[in-house]
């Protein structure tokens, strides 16, 4: 059901763990399946993401997308990180089964939540960042029959 890349990131997740005293940390839950993801960011003074770690309680897709998402934002600026959408993560993983698309939203939201935490701590405003909901959910599938 999962692609090779998903399986690779699932079995050998990159950047799994915690960061002590992170610049920002965000935890989001998926209302749809009850799964949870926490993202830790270490951001330097130039707004570059020096390090990123995650912890995930979730399915294979959730673990793999967290892992891939951290890879995609590591070393990037905040602005660049904001452009990493769940679609980009999925593409980097060679796709997810339709029923698992919503899992990838978890990663996107967790990054946003961690950035929001960073901005609040710093007392700054990040252009284009909305306050993340603690529970995310995707729009209803268009046609339930199609998966």
């Amino acid at each position: 059901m999962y692609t090779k890349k998903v399986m690779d990131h699932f079995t050998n997740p990159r950047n799994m763990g915690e960061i002590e005293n992170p610049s920002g940390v965000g935890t989001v839950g998926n209302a749809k399946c009850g799964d949870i993801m926490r993202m830790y960011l270490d951001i330097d003074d130039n707004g570059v993401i020096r390090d990123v770690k995650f912890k995930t309680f979730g399915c294979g897709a959730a673990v793999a997308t967290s892992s891939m998402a951290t890879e995609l934002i590591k070393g990037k600026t905040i602005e660049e990180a904001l452009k990493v959408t769940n679609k980009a993560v999925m593409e980097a993983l060679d796709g997810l089964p339709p029923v698992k698309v919503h899992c990838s939203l978890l990663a996107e939201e967790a990054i946003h939540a961690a950035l929001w935490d960073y901005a609040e701590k710093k007392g700054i405003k990040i252009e284009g960042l909305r306050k993340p909901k603690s529970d995310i959910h995707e729009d209803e599938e268009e046609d339930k029959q199609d998966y």
Partner: protein
Amino acid sequence: MEKKIYLDNAATTRTRPEVVEAMLPYFSEMFGNPSSIYEFAMQNKKAIDDARSIIAKAIGAETNEIYFTGSGTEADNWALIATAEAFENKGKHIITSKIEHHAVLHTCEYLQKKRGFEVTYIDVDEFGCVKLDQLEKAIRPDTILISIMFANNEIGTIQPIKEIGQIAKKHNIIFHTDAVQAFCQVDIDVNELGVDLLSASAHKVNGPKGIGFLYIRKGVRIGSFIHGGAQERGRRAGTENVPYIVGFGKAVEIAMANMKERTKKETELRDYLIKRILAEVPYTRLNGHRTKRLPNNANFSFQFIEGESLLIMLDMNNICASSGSACTSGSLDPSHVLLAIGLPHEIAHGSLRLTLNDEITYEDIDYTVEKIKEIVYKLRQMSPLYED
């Protein structure tokens, strides 16, 4: 291919080679339509009757009380929908439990939404046993059917069927039991238990997938569910699946012959597995009743981890297992059965069902326990819920 340790026998079982052997002649040699008049086809009628009588005997029924269906699910649908139709003039209330298989639950939903029935879903206790007092209190003058499964497919709990049968009889209500998981695993005598309708499925007892039966007690006058030709004495239409009927008969013959020995062996292995897991994996609970459970079922919740990840990692180690029931694995909801026994959402999510067969060895169990320990440890390291 490396050796697989198949611990998902509640999802489906291997069709026994002897069963395949028994079916084979009915595909390309004795392929006649049993309803035909010529000798060539009549032998198939006899083959069907022989299988029917083997199966009847296995539950203490008469031969002509057994009707073959295309699955256990069809048998459940038939029992519920046809009973509803037959007795809707008497009343439109049905009692079932919160932990039924979807074949019963979704049919109840259909009867509610599309056919104007009311359904009461009885609670279970923390071990998954249906609350008998609540059940009896739920009975109303317009209650026409009680449907309670014989044994649960996820947590293996065996229900007090005889007591329910007595309650149903006392109130003159039809009693159906979904025995798909219990058939050939526990002793069943429909008369002793007071069961009026009973569903079962071949692929859970080393027979083929796509055939089941409904037992209908003589005198219980319900109509057909699938309408058409006069097969199954006019009650279930469609050209008979001769090979599978023969195969079902063979599978039951074997399963009944070795039942005592097989379930004894499975129970021992099951208890060994449960003991080791509970002793060696912290933050773990056994779901279901400790003793009133299917001989081959073990079901655990591992706190802080999520089921799918666990299953995939077991799979990578050649262990086949499941979390909920197979047919809902497409769904993201936590198991309705685990929620019904009172588990919180996150714990229900981290559940693992291991269901044995009689080919599983102590060695297999030992290997499985070691792998579970490793994987649970690894996943907990990854979990934001786990603080060590």
